[in-house]
């Protein structure tokens, strides 16, 4: 096997914080090497060093056997390194074809732009990954997963030898994930090396040849994953479940988790509970043309967790945004504790006891430049600051209370949002909405991009909230999470509710409902 990449004793500091403390890492041709670690373990920094976005403070980098002294993004690009970031690094104002073209054509600034070949190339690449996206569409108009697919097309088109994927499935649906896996395996068999980062352990067992676990800027170890893939393209959830159960004794999920967190996490999902109370939120034929939501009828009861499953683009986030008043409903009714209400804006929703923890926490969930305390009290200005006068003591006390309650790891209530890890940002976002003492809590992908430790904590918090009588509506693309957490599951398809299933349903049923009749036969 040819060695594609070799990092030796790489170090990197940001100010006083040492992000990487001498990490060694290698990638062979034709392998998928998974990189695991909690948020803040140093994965992102390591990737940025490989892509040339950061310069290491010490250590060496060898690419294809040759030592590289100074790696810039341009040099990395030329050396065949491509990276698919969690937040797609695309040009929102330009078309898909142009985005791909700009990535692939390199920085020769005086060459002529051949629009036709750009279009054809884009079409070809998109078709290859099975994405149904027009090359002429403006990227601004695409959904997040669609944008991620464009990123993948870019990497593929660049003929990259080293492909880095940073949580590519975070916002993908099962079907898109399947397509992606096929692409990864395709890359692998063509002799490229893939560095794969994910918080979803089952994906790692499904895909990876080797796995390296990082913790606190150090490498805890690299292990072989014994894959027992019969049919490599076979990716349905039930198959992978099966494989999890029968996975080889050399490396188990719990062992990986132990490596990551340095402790065993015995139980991933807190136990469900029974006896939900009265109906708190009831939707009757709710519709919103702009959001593509139509004819949704749904009941959420106090003390239950109702999951919204479905493919991305099925209208789940749009439904949440409609209930929360961001894109107000134009048809049907929202009935809150027996009272018909109209919600035109988020502030009305908040006033009526609806809280929404949004999907994109960096853009919507937390204001990164503002301190934790100010973020937490943002939804309760009226209550905590009577007469609009700020009361800094009360604010601080409130924030400290939530920091303790949710175990937010920040150095204090005055820490700005961007100094926190993803999981802790999510907790801050959650705290903001718990502070409003809501009756209905809508969670949109509450654990997306959150490391295993924090994920489990968030799950416990959600369950505790439901136990305290909150009606929880949880949107998730993480099937195990849905199956593990829900009391009931509503599956959306094409902007409406396709099925409502009991919490004990199997993955198969949920998926077939989400995919419609065609998928059900699988």
């Amino acid at each position: 096997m040819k060695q594609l990449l070799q990092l030796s004793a790489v170090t990197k500091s940001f100010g006083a914080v040492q992000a990487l403390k001498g990490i060694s890492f290698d990638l062979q041709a034709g392998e998928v090497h998974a990189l695991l670690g909690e948020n803040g373990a140093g994965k992102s920094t390591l990737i940025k060093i490989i892509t040339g976005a950061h310069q290491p403070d010490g250590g060496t980098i060898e690419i294809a056997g040759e030592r590289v002294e100074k790696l810039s993004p341009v040099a990395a690009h030329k050396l065949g390194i491509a990276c698919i970031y969690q937040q797609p690094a695309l040009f929102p104002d330009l078309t898909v074809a142009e985005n791909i073209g700009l990535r692939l054509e390199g920085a020769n600034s005086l060459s002529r732009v051949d629009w036709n070949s750009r279009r054809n190339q884009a079409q070809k690449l998109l078709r290859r990954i099975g994405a149904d996206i027009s090359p002429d569409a403006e990227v601004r108009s695409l959904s997040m997963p669609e944008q991620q697919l464009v990123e993948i097309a870019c990497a593929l088109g660049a003929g990259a030898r080293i492909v880095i994927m940073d949580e590519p499935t975070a916002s993908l649906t099962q079907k898109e994930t399947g397509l992606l896996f096929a692409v990864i395996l395709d890359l692998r068999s063509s002799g490229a090396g893939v560095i794969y980062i994910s918080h979803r352990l089952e994906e790692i067992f499904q895909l990876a040849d080797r796995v390296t676990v990082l913790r606190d800027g150090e490498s805890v170890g690299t292990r072989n994953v014994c894959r027992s893939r019969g049919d490599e393209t076979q990716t349905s959830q039930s198959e992978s479940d099966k494989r999890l159960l029968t996975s080889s004794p050399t490396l188990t999920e719990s062992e990986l988790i132990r490596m990551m967190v340095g402790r065993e996490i015995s139980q991933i999902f807190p136990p469900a509970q029974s006896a939900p109370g009265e109906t708190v939120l009831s939707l009757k034929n709710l519709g919103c043309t702009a959001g593509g939501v139509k004819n949704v009828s749904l009941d959420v009861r106090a003390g239950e967790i109702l999951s919204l499953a479905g493919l991305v683009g099925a209208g789940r986030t749009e439904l949440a945004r409609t209930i929360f008043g961001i894109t107000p409903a134009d048809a049907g009714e929202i009935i809150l504790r027996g009272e018909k209400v109209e919600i035109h804006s988020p502030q009305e929703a908040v006033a009526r006891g609806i809280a929404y923890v949004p999907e994109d926490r960096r853009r919507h969930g937390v204001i990164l430049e503002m301190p934790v305390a100010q973020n937490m009290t943002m939804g309760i200005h009226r209550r905590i600051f009577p007469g609009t006068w700020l009361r800094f003591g009360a604010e601080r006390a409130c924030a400290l209370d939530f920091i303790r309650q949710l175990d937010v790891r920040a150095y204090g209530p005055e820490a700005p949002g961007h100094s926190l890890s993803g999981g802790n940002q999510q907790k801050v976002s959650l705290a903001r909405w718990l502070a409003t003492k809501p009756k209905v809590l809508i969670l949109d992908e509450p654990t997306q991009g959150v490391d295993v430790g924090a994920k489990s904590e968030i799950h416990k918090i959600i369950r505790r909230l439901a136990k305290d009588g909150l009606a929880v509506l949880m949107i998730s693309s993480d099937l195990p999470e849905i199956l593990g957490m829900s009391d009931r599951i509503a599956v959306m398809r094409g902007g409406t509710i396709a099925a409502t299933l009991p919490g004990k349903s199997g993955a198969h049923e949920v998926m077939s409902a989400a995919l419609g009749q065609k998928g059900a036969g699988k």
Partner: protein
Amino acid sequence: MNKYFREFSAAAALGILLLALAIFAPSFFQPQPLLSLATREAPTLVVACGMALVIICRQIDISVGSQFAVCSVCAGLLAAMHWPLALVLATTILIGTTFGAFNGALVAGLGLPSIVVTLATMVTWREGLRWLRQGVWVDLPNGVQWFGLPQMTGQWTLVLVALAILILLALTLKHISIGRFVYAVGSDAEAARLAGIRPRMMTFGVFVFMGALTGLAAMMNTIQSPQVDPNSGTGLELKTIAAVVVGGVAISGGRGTLWGVFTGLLLLACISPALTHLHVEAFWGKAIQGATILLAVVADGVRTRKQRY
């Protein structure tokens, strides 16, 4: 249609204006006055092209008026010293380039916000020029006006030079990689960096280019008359920004075409003579100008508001 709505709305407004003129004041359409109008606006078009580039790159330059004035006076002084005109032209462009490079260095090099940097350079250059020259006009020797060509030829030359720059730049923006890089940087600088484009170099380059175009425009203005008014270029920044915006370039960068800018400039340039032709009294001019800018953006705002949800 949607993508180019702003361009079309500017064109439609221009069409309506021209139609109104054709009906109520056909005297507007006479070749010699129109050529004069075009010649007067040719330097503005050149500056507007540069401004469009700067705004597409998600920056802004409000110091162009002052740069223009300084370049005009320099060009006049050099011509008055009987330098060969080609050398005067080259030097003027060089002076403009230096101003642009200064802005560019502060914006791209130090990462300072362009609106503030150019606000500062705007007052500094303008006041500096006043201090040094005390508002004295520069008298040009014979043979400088129209480069010594007959008037008609000179006017056509200027108009054609401006149009050539417009067409060349529009084609470059669409069909040469570096033009697309301007859009890329304006759309998302970080993504541009990852695609191997150097956003800071591009930003710097755009400012330098803006300066060079301003220098050229100043020269084009200088040779139109036998005297240089050191106050020329006052308000040029607002006029060009308005033309760029009315023509559909997004102030947030990454979007817009030079054809739109051209339409926008034509619209704004025609309003003032049109009001004269339509016998509207002069004191309405400014209000109508403002209302036109507002209408152009409001039309777009109303349209996209519906789409947004």
